[in-house]
C-alpha cells in the first residue's frame, strides 16, 4: 500500500520535475556559464566577470536597465488605478447577466494575439490614423497629429496589454467581500473614502499584490509593445537582450543582461511583498 502511494507520488511529481529541470533550471545554468565567459579570439573563451563589469560600467546599459524598471513600475501603477474601479464595478455594482457580459468584454481583446492588438493601436495613433483624422475633422487640429513612437504611446500599449491580468484577481478578491461589511462601515459613520481605505483596499490586498506582480513581470518582459509603439529613444531592456543575442551574436553579454533582468524582477517582487507585509504563500495561495 505504502509502495503504491509512493509510485503515485513519483508519477505525479515527474512532469513537474521534468518541466522545471529541462526548461528552467538547466537552461539557466547554461546561461550563467555563458555569461561568465569572455571571448579571446576565434572559438577561444576564458572564464571571467568581464561581461558583468561591462554591463555595470557602461552608462547606456544601466540607463536602459533603470528606465525599463521604472517604466514597468509606472505601468503597473496606472494599470492598478484603471483596473480597480472596473473590477469594483464588475464585482459589486453589476448584477447577474450584466456582470458576466462586462467580464467577457474585458476578455474579448485577448481573443486576438498581442501582435494584432498592437497593430490596432498603431492604426489608431499614427499620423494618418483614425484619431488624427478625427481631430482634424472636428477642427481641434489643423494638421496631422503624430501620437505614435513616444513613451506615452508605449505606456498606453503596456497598460492595455496587461489590464486583464489585473482585473481578474481583483474581481475574485472583491467578490468575496461581504456587502454587509461595507454597509456596516457606513452605518458606523464612515464615508466613501474611509470605507475604501479601511475596508475595501485591505480586503482586496491579496488581489492587488498578485495582480501587480503579474502585470509588472509582463511589462518588464514585454518585447513587442515597446519595439512597435515606442519611439526612437525608447530602448527597452528586452530589446537589448535580443540585440545582443541575435544582431550582435554576443551571447555572453546577452546572457549577462538576462541575469540582470532576472535579478531585478526578483528584487522588485520581493520588495513589493515586503512593502505590503505579505508573504508569497498568502499571495499565491
Amino acid at each position, binding site marked *: 500500500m505504502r509502495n503504491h502511494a509512493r509510485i503515485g507520488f513519483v508519477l505525479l511529481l515527474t512532469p513537474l520535475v521534468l518541466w522545471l529541470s529541462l526548461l528552467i533550471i538547466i537552461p539557466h545554468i547554461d546561461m550563467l556559464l555563458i555569461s561568465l565567459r569572455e571571448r579571446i579570439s*576565434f*572559438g577561444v573563451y576564458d572564464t571571467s566577470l568581464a561581461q558583468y563589469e561591462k554591463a555595470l560600467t557602461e552608462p*547606456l*546599459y544601466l*540607463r*536602459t536597465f533603470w528606465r525599463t524598471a521604472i517604466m514597468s513600475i509606472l505601468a503597473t501603477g496606472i494599470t492598478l488605478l484603471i483596473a480597480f474601479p472596473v473590477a469594483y464595478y464588475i464585482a459589486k455594482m453589476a448584477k447577474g447577466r450584466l456582470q458576466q457580459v462586462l467580464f467577457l468584454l474585458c476578455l474579448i481583446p485577448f481573443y486576438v494575439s498581442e501582435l494584432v492588438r498592437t497593430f490596432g493601436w498603431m492604426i489608431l495613433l*499614427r*499620423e*494618418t490614423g483614425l484619431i488624427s483624422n478625427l481631430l482634424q475633422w472636428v477642427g481641434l487640429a489643423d494638421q496631422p497629429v*503624430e501620437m*505614435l*513612437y513616444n513613451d506615452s504611446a508605449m505606456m498606453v500599449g503596456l497598460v492595455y496589454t496587461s489590464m486583464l491580468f489585473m482585473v481578474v484577481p481583483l474581481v475574485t478578491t472583491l467578490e468575496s467581500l461581504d456587502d454587509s461589511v461595507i454597509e456596516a462601515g457606513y452605518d458606523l459613520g464612515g464615508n466613501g473614502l474611509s470605507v475604501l481605505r479601511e475596508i475595501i483596499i485591505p480586503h482586496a490586498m491579496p488581489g492587488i499584490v498578485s495582480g501587480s506582480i503579474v502585470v509588472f513581470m509582463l511589462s518588464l518582459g514585454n518585447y513587442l509593445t515597446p*519595439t512597435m509603439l515606442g*519611439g*526612437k*529613444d525608447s*530602448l527597452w531592456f528586452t530589446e*537589448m537582450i535580443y*540585440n*545582443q*543575442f*541575435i*544582431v*550582435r*551574436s*554576443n551571447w555572453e553579454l546577452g546572457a549577462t543582461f538576462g541575469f540582470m533582468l532576472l535579478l531585478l524582477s526578483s528584487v522588485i517582487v520581493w520588495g513589493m511583498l515586503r512593502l505590503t507585509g505579505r508573504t508569497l504563500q498568502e499571495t499565491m495561495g
Partner: protein
Amino acid sequence: MTKTLLTTTCLTVLALSQTASADTLRLLTWGGYAPDEVIEMFEEETGHTVEVTKSNNEEMIAKLRATGGGGFDLAQPSQDRIMGPQMEFGIYKPIDVSKLDESLFIPSMLKATMGNTTVGGDVYGVPHVWGTSGLVINTAEAGDVVKDYTDLCAPEVAGNVSYRLKRPTLIGFAFALGEDPFAAYGDEEKYAEIMQKVETKLTECKSNVKTYWGGGDELMNLLRSGEVTASMAWDTGGWKLNDDNADITFVAPASGALGWIDTFVLPAKGQADDAAYDWINFVMQPEVAAKITASAGNFTASAGADQFAEDSLKAKYQASFPQEAIDNIKWYPPVPAGLESIEGDVLDRVQAAN
C-alpha cells in the same frame, strides 16, 4: 480480421519507409526567394519535399549557431556573413562545386563570391540573389534635397525620414562622409575612428528621424501613407512602391549604393546535401531564376535569366542605375569578427542618445 490488421501494418510500414527515403529539404531563406510555384515544380521534378523557413541574416546565423549548424539543409546568408561566422562557430560545411552546374552562374559573380567565402582553402558559398541598398525617396517631395545618405539630415526633410539602426546605415553614412570603411576593415583603430564620426553624425541627425524602421512592411506603410518621404532601404522596396505611386522610387546615392549578394551555404549538420545541390541547380536555370526575380524583385546570379525578366522591372532597374551608378556600387567585403562589436556599441549609443 488478422489479415486486415496485417495488411494495414504492412501499408503503414511501407508508407513510413517511403517518407524516410524521399529527401526533405529544409531551406532557411529570405521572403520571396522560394516562391510556391518554384517549389511545386521542384517537388514534381525531383520527388524531394521542401520546407521553407523565412528569416534574415542575423537570425539565420543565430539559429545555426544555436544548433551548431543543424536543423536546416540549405541556408542563404549574405556573402559577407560567411567567413566570420565560419571561423568563429564552424556552422557551415564546404560546398563541393563539382556537384553544381557552374555554367548556370554569371562567371564573375561566382568567382567573386567563392573568393569571399573561402576559409582554409574550402569554398563555403555560391551566389544566388543580388541587389543593393540605397535611398527610397518620394521624388515629388524630397527629390531635390536628398541625393546622398547624409542629406537625410537636411532640415527640409525633418520629421519625414526613416532608416534602420543596423550596419548598412553605418556603412552608408561612412561613405557619404567621404570615408572608406571597407578599406579600414583590416585596421580596427581606423575603423573605430570612422565609426566615431558616423556616430556623431547619426546622433545629430536623430531629431530628423520619425522612427527607426525594423521590418520592410513597416517602412512600406510609412512611405505609402506619405508619413515618410525619404528613407534608406533596399532597391526592391522602392520599385515595389513605384507600382502604387509613381513618385516613389529607388535612387542610388551619390556616394554609391551598397551591393549585397545572398548566397547558398550548407549548414554543418545538414542531412540532405543531395537535395540541396539539386535545389541550387534547379533554381539557377534561367527560366526558374526569372520566376524568383519576379517574386523577390531582385536579380539573380543566373546567367541568361535577364532575358526572361519582366520588362517593367528592367525599366525600373535602368532608371535607378545609370552605368556610372552601377560602377559606383560598393560591394560588401567579408566582415572581420571584431568589427561588429564596435558597430554594436555605436548603434546602442545612437539609439540611447537624446
